[in-house]
């Protein structure tokens, strides 16, 4: 807004021209200082020629309902995007698509220095609209305006149902216009074709609360329903950029995994085979291994167990005990393997190998206490225990990968569902549903 523009919101107000309706005698107020082509009598709904000093009657229409009431009353003044405007006209328009009537409202705003602009409202979605200063270039399913590409959204036939106040054109109820919308959220480019005249307008999405604040309207704006054609997506992030960032992180994670895998010592510290015989272990079954030394920083210790079981099990109660400090890591591992043959063919489950990784074991002298429990059907079995220090845990990378992936998937899904909702209302829905053959019969 230029500093020289006098405000409209504060007193003193500019003087509006007061006239009377030639049909019903009701007072007619002209607020647009000669810019109006037509003015509508609020009392008898006559559309009058605002350019005629006698206000010639151009059309009279009847309203079937008294529910049509502008959300912003005529004469309301407010500051829209830094400029003062007064609401001077209101019209309701509609279109029919597949037998469903869609209605929206348009408000004519006037500033004596800035001229006319418009607000449109549909289901709580608002647009601030002005006439294009340059002719957009229509390129098939898209249009180019000031270097920005707008995608075609829909084309429909719009008719005017109801008018009130002043209009800078020859407004008529029942008048039809071919409307084509092109979108580049939050902007919308519309062409309106009447007879041989095409008018292009550019709009920008506004939230109801912004309108309410601008015109200082009481209460709360109607809640926006659904997704509007040029409504900005709540996902403001560049989704492709997010995937690029994810790919970069995944590569780094891979490099990290390779680096730690090469750096891991994978140092064997114990490998023993134990023989268990039921006849010899009538009493205590537990045993201890030789003492081994773990060196260096706290690291993982992998315990691998192998037992030649076949349709049987062996369970080993392990305790890795630090000989010096008495600290112990206690865990149990089962090795079992079952196989057979039935009507579905051969099957197997379990494994003769088991592996477990003990976390963050500090350096020191250790030994294992092992207490085997064996399937009652097994008279004797030999099992091996192999202990390796400082092994990489690949599961950590798996969790990190998922942690990196999940936010990107959520963002992408939100963006996709929003755009899908937007375009499902267009002439180019994301998925075409073919009608059943029964409809044609």
């Amino acid at each position, binding site marked *: 807004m230029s500093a020289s523009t006098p405000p409209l919101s504060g007193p003193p107000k500019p003087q509006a021209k007061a006239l009377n309706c030639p049909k019903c005698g009701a007072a007619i107020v002209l607020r647009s200082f000669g810019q109006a082509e037509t003015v509508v009598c609020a009392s008898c709904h006559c559309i009058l020629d605002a350019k005629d000093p006698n206000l010639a009657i151009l059309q009279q229409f009847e309203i079937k309902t008294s529910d049509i009431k502008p959300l912003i009353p005529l004469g309301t003044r407010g500051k829209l995007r830094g400029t003062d405007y007064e609401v001077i006209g209101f019209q309701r328009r509609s279109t029919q698509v597949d037998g469903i009537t869609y209605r929206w409202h348009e408000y004519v705003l006037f500033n004596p220095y800035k001229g006319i602009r418009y607000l449109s409202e549909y289901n709580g979605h608002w647009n601030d609209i002005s006439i294009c200063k340059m002719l957009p270039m229509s390129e098939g399913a898209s249009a180019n305006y000031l270097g920005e590409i707008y995608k075609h959204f829909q084309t429909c036939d719009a008719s005017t149902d109801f008018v009130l106040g002043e209009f800078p054109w020859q407004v008529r109820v029942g008048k039809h216009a071919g409307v084509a919308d092109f979108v580049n959220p939050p902007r919308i480019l519309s062409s309106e074709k009447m007879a041989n005249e095409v008018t292009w307008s550019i709009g920008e999405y506004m939230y109801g609360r912004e309108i309410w604040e601008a015109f200082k309207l009481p209460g709360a704006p109607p809640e926006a329903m659904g997704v509007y054609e040029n409504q900005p997506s709540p996902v403001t992030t560049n989704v492709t950029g997010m995937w690029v960032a994810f790919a970069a992180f995944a590569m780094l994670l891979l490099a990290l995994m390779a680096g730690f895998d090469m750096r891991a010592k994978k140092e064997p510290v114990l490998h023993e085979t134990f023989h268990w015989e039921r006849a010899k272990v009538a009493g205590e079954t*537990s045993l201890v291994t030789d003492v081994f030394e773990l060196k260096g920083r706290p690291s993982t210790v992998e315990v691998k167990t192998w037992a030649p079981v076949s349709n049987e099990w062996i369970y080993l*109660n392990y*305790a890795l005990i630090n000989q010096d400090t*008495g600290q*112990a890591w206690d*865990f149990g591992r089962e090795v079992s393997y079952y196989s*057979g043959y039935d009507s579905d063919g051969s099957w197997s489950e379990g494994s003769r190998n088991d592996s477990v990784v003990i976390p963050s074991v500090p350096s020191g002298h250790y030994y294992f206490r092992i207490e085997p429990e064996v399937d009652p059907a097994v008279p004797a079995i030999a099992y091996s225990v192999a202990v390796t220090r400082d092994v990489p845990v690949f599961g950590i990378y798996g969790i990190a990968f998922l942690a990196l992936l999940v936010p990107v998937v959520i963002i992408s899904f939100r963006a996709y569902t929003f755009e899908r909702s937007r375009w499902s209302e267009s002439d180019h829905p994301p998925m075409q549903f073919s009608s059943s053959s029964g409809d044609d019969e």
Partner: protein
Amino acid sequence: MFRKLYLLYGALVLSTAAFGQYRGWSLDTINQLKNVPKSVRDNPGSYRSVYSGYHHYTGGK
């Protein structure tokens, strides 16, 4: 904005993964005990694992 947050978050995830790997984190659940008596080495039966005596799977299809 969100992309910057994600970059920060990703860096944190990678750092945590690297730190965990360096410190020897594991995904297995292992019960830790303290002050196991030294006599266990000479008398293994004096220690009882918290996992011993469980019912074991006697599987098969």
